[in-house]
Structures are given as structure tokens and as C-alpha cells.
């Protein structure tokens, strides 16, 4: 074995070890999240309920309430982290995130418009099926409009990271202004519904939403793993990547489109959950370095773990009050991000 092979093998073991460690943490956090809450479900009863046995109360709590919530947190956290990692890679910028690109603001604008037009929000009791699906659909369309404008601009101009970020920032302010305008003309209840919607809350997603998110997030993960090597090469710069046979423009546009789609979908179902997409990839880059083959799955696991832990905390800290998890991730995420900036400064 050469010195190189030994060092590289050692590093790979470290990376696989990190993946395993995070997966284990996620499994423990997930189990814990299923067990605790307003009704505590002991581990044995939990296992029984999961396999279809146990008391009806436990089965109801686990299957109707907590399982979709925990799975929702895993998928949403993982999806946001993968989208964030992809955006950072495509934009060659550590600040790549749904918020920087105006996707969150556009989704919030879409949701607000739907709430105003129908007079009901996902949060109100009335409305039924219409309210359950109309607001997320409008939010999703809003997010995709923002994405579409960015993609259209970079297709006709050059798809440089700078163009993308600047366009995103401009669109973000535009939709923010639109949102403020809508709120100005809305009634008190409507403003409350709009504001409530923007607090990210996993509890909003039921089984159908969780299944849709899972399918899309898995497909996006598969895409980024399949093209991981190309995205690695992209990081070396446009000229180098092209000299290595990579179609840079198409890779950037596809990566951006997929990451935006995932983000818009998640945001439309659970509202705005800040910092997971930004923090998770940075944690991974700092601990095990950046190659996409490890970055993508590791970011997904870290993002999922962060959101499961945050959501469980949001449910239980101020019990019986259930905090929207979006507030908690922002509170936890901002200092964590500052810490990463200060500690990890050497690495970017």
C-alpha cells in the first residue's frame, strides 16, 4: 500500500464512519420523537403499536399523529439540506439557500394570495379539502415562478453564479414587497392566517404530503448522486470543468431547477423553515470535506436529524404549547451558523 492509498483509505473510513454515526443518531432521535409528547409511549408499547399491536390509543397516536410528523421532519429536513447543498455547489457560494434565491419569499407570497382569495387559510377550521391543498399549491406555484424567472434569465444570459444570485435577491425583494402589500389590504384574520402560514410547522403535513415529499426528495437525491462527480468538477471553475468535458450551463440549470423544485414543494407543505438548508451542508463540509458523493447523503442525514430534534423540542419544551419548528430552527440555526463562520473561517 502506498502512502497515498493509506491516507485516502483512512479518510474514506472517516467519512463512512461519519455517515454511520449520523444515521444512528437519526434513528435514536426518531425513536425518541415517536415516544415522547403529551402522551408518553414506552418503548415496548411503541414497537407494539408500530407492528399493529398495542392499545388503540397508542396505535392512533403513533400512526395518525407522530409517525407522519417524524417522517415529515426527516424528509423535509433531508430535502432542504440536499437542496441547500446543491444550490451552494451550483452557485459556488456558501450563501446559497432558498432565502437568498427568493424562493421562500415567492412561496409565502403565493400562499398569502391563496389565503386572501379564498378567505381561508390552512390554519382555519373551515375550508376542508380546498384549504388543505389550495394554499400549498399556490405557494408551490409562487416558488416555481421565482425559479422560472431565474432559470429563464440564466438561459438567455450566461448561467453564471453571479447572475443567479443577483436575480434571486431582486426577486426576493419583489415578492417580499408584494407580500407586504397583500397584508396591508388584508383583514385581521387574513393577516393572522398569512403570518401563521409563514411559521414553518411540520404538523401541517399529513400522510399524503409526506408521501409526495418522500418521492420527490428521493428522486432528487438519486439525481445528485448520479451526477455527483460532474458537480465536483464544476466546483473547480467553469474553464476547468469545460475542459474536462462537462456541460457547465446545462448542469447548473438542471441542478438549480431540481433544488428549487424540492425547496418549493417542502415550503408549500410545511411553511418556511430557515437555516436547515444552510447549516447542514456546512456542518458536513467542515467535518468530512466536500466531495458530492458524501456531501449529499451526509447533508440529508444531518438535515433530517436537525429537524427531527428541533421539531421534538418545539413540541415538548413549552408543553402543552406547540411551537412552530420554523421559529426554533431560526433561533438555533443563527448562532450555529455564526459559530461555523467563526470556527470554520479557514475553510471558505
Amino acid at each position, binding site marked *: 500500500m502506498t502512502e497515498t492509498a493509506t*491516507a485516502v483509505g*483512512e479518510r474514506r473510513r472517516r467519512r463512512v464512519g461519519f455517515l454511520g454515526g449520523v444515521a444512528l443518531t437519526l434513528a435514536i432521535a426518531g425513536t425518541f420523537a415517536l415516544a415522547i409528547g403529551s402522551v408518553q409511549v414506552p418503548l415496548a408499547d411503541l414497537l407494539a403499536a408500530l407492528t399493529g399491536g398495542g392499545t388503540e390509543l397508542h396505535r392512533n397516536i403513533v400512526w395518525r399523529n407522530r409517525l407522519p410528523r417524524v417522517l415529515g421532519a426527516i424528509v423535509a429536513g433531508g430535502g432542504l439540506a440536499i437542496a441547500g447543498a446543491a444550490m451552494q455547489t451550483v452557485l*459556488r457560494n456558501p450563501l446559497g439557500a432558498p432565502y437568498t434565491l427568493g424562493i421562500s419569499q415567492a412561496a409565502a407570497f403565493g400562499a398569502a394570495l391563496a389565503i386572501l382569495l379564498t378567505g381561508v387559510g390552512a390554519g382555519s377550521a373551515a375550508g376542508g379539502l380546498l384549504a388543505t391543498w389550495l394554499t400549498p399549491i399556490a405557494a408551490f406555484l409562487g416558488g416555481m415562478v421565482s425559479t422560472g424567472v431565474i432559470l429563464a434569465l440564466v438561459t438567455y444570459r450566461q448561467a453564471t453564479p453571479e447572475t443567479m444570485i443577483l436575480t434571486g435577491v431582486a426577486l426576493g425583494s419583489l415578492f417580499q414587497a408584494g407580500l407586504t402589500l397583500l397584508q396591508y389590504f388584508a383583514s385581521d384574520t387574513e393577516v393572522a392566517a398569512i403570518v401563521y402560514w409563514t411559521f414553518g410547522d411540520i404538523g401541517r403535513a399529513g400522510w399524503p404530503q409526506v408521501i409526495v415529499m418522500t418521492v420527490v426528495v428521493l428522486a432528487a437525491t438519486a439525481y445528485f448522486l448520479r*451526477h455527483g462527480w460532474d458537480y465536483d468538477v464544476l466546483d473547480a471553475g467553469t*474553464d476547468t470543468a469545460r*475542459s*474536462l468535458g462537462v456541460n457547465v450551463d446545462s448542469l447548473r440549470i438542471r441542478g438549480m431547477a431540481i433544488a428549487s423544485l424540492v425547496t418549493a414543494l417542502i415550503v408549500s407543505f410545511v411553511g418556511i423553515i430557515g437555516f436547515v438548508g444552510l447549516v447542514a451542508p456546512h456542518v458536513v463540509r467542515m467535518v468530512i470535506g466536500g466531495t458530492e458523493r458524501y456531501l449529499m447523503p451526509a447533508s440529508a442525514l444531518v438535515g433530517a436529524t436537525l429537524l427531527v430534534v428541533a421539531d421534538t423540542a418545539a413540541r415538548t419544551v413549552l408543553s402543552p404549547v406547540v411551537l412552530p419548528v420554523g421559529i426554533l430552527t431560526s433561533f438555533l440555526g443563527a448562532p450555529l451558523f455564526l459559530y461555523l463562520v467563526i470556527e470554520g473561517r479557514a475553510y471558505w
Partner: protein
Amino acid sequence: MQRLTFAYDDEQILEEINLTVQSGELLGLLGPNGSGKSTLLECCNRLLGPDSGRVTIDGDPIATLAPDERARRVGYVPQSESGAFPASVFETILQGRRPHGGWSPSASDREAVERVIDRLGLDGLATRNVENLSGGQRQKVRLGRALVGDPSVLLLDEPTSALDLKHRLEVMDLVVGQLQGDVAGMIAIHDLNLAARYCDRVALLAEGEVHAVGPPDVLTAEAIREVYGVEASVRRHRDRRLVVPEAPADTGPSAAEPPIEGHVADRPTPNTAETDD
């Protein structure tokens, strides 16, 4: 046998350039800033598409090669690059195996990278972040990435400009050593003495045209004055040309037409052999 033919018709950068590089040969592209050296290299690589004319490798026009096939045949070391996120030496060189296909590096890709790391003397640095290496080591890593795909043509855009004396010699020794008879090399270079020492032939470019091409002996005081607008003494040292720049010439390259009184003739930036940019 390599045969690169260039014929461009771009009035601004390159005009009707015809050059051929043989396998195992290193051709130095010389000329002042803006004379078209980098543009020429980028055309050989399809980073830029020429307006007219064509580039062929082994008789195949590169314009018709698939991107992966072209990337397998042409290794390229850009003038400068900076990754947005950290990458290790091993990962950076591994990027050079991408055109060999697959969605994920295979065992043979990894072995090729290990061999290149060994050949370039980068052992012990494999897992280090490239951005934390010295300029010379970083340049070797980029050279490694260009070589790891076993190209038949190697294009280098001023790989020594930012390096100190020792690393200039080390990198040039490596470049020449890697050609080994079956790779054709083209290097854009500012340092005339390095060019005279390492290149088999040099092409002097001025305003997008080939002023002279041939063995380093074409580097005469007169040619340097005409191309660079610099008065220089050319000596012989151990059978090599040694260019000692003296002063910017009074008249620019267009010496035939005397400048109009009170008007400074437009001439390329004077360039000394002691570039330190």
C-alpha cells in the same frame, strides 16, 4: 503522431494562425499580454470556438469530437482557478478522470491518481486541502489533474507565472518529463529564458499573428524588440539563449511607420523576462 493545425480568422484576437506540434514536443507560445496566447490555447480546447479555421488532433477535427472524447485527448491547466469549497489533492486530481466515464470513480481511476501523485512527488499531501498548499504544489496538482486522464495533448496557460525560481524549474522539469515522446505540449509562457531552456520550439505571437516560429534561436534581439517593444541583449549561456531585457524600446513594434509627433504610438505593454505577476 500528433498534428495540431490551427487556422483562425478572427480579426481581433487571432489571425490565420498555422501551427503544428509533434508528439513529445513542447511548443512555447510567447508574446506580450493581449497577443492571443491564452485565446489560442482555449481554441485548442473548444473553450472558445474559432470563427473559422480548425484544430485537429491525430487528423480528427476537435470540433466534431464529443466533449468527453475531447477531454480525454486534451489536458488543460488554466491560468488561474479557485474552488469555492475545499477539495483535497486526491479529489482534485481525481476530477481529471471524469471524462473516462462512469458516474463514480472506479478502482482504476483511483490507481491512476495514486500513480500521478507519486510521479509528481506529492506523496504525503493526498488528503491536504489544495488551497492550503504552496503555489508550486498547487500548480503541480493542476498539472496532475491534466495528466491523469492520459491526454495526447497538454495545454498549459502560464503555469509558472506565479511561482518562485525553484518551483518554476521544478514544474517545467515535470512538464517536459511528462511529455515522454507521446504527448504534445503547448505552453503559454512569459519567461523567455525558461522558454528557451525547456521548449523545443517557440512561436512568437504579436497582435494575433505568428511573428516567428522555430527553435529558441528565433529569440533574437530584433524579434524581441519588434514583438515586445523592449531592447534586450541576447547572449549564449551553456548553449542556450539568455535574454537580458535592457529597456523599453523607443519605438513600438510598428517601427516602419514613425509615430506622429506628439502622439504616443500604441504598443503592447513592455514585458520583461523577469515577470513576477
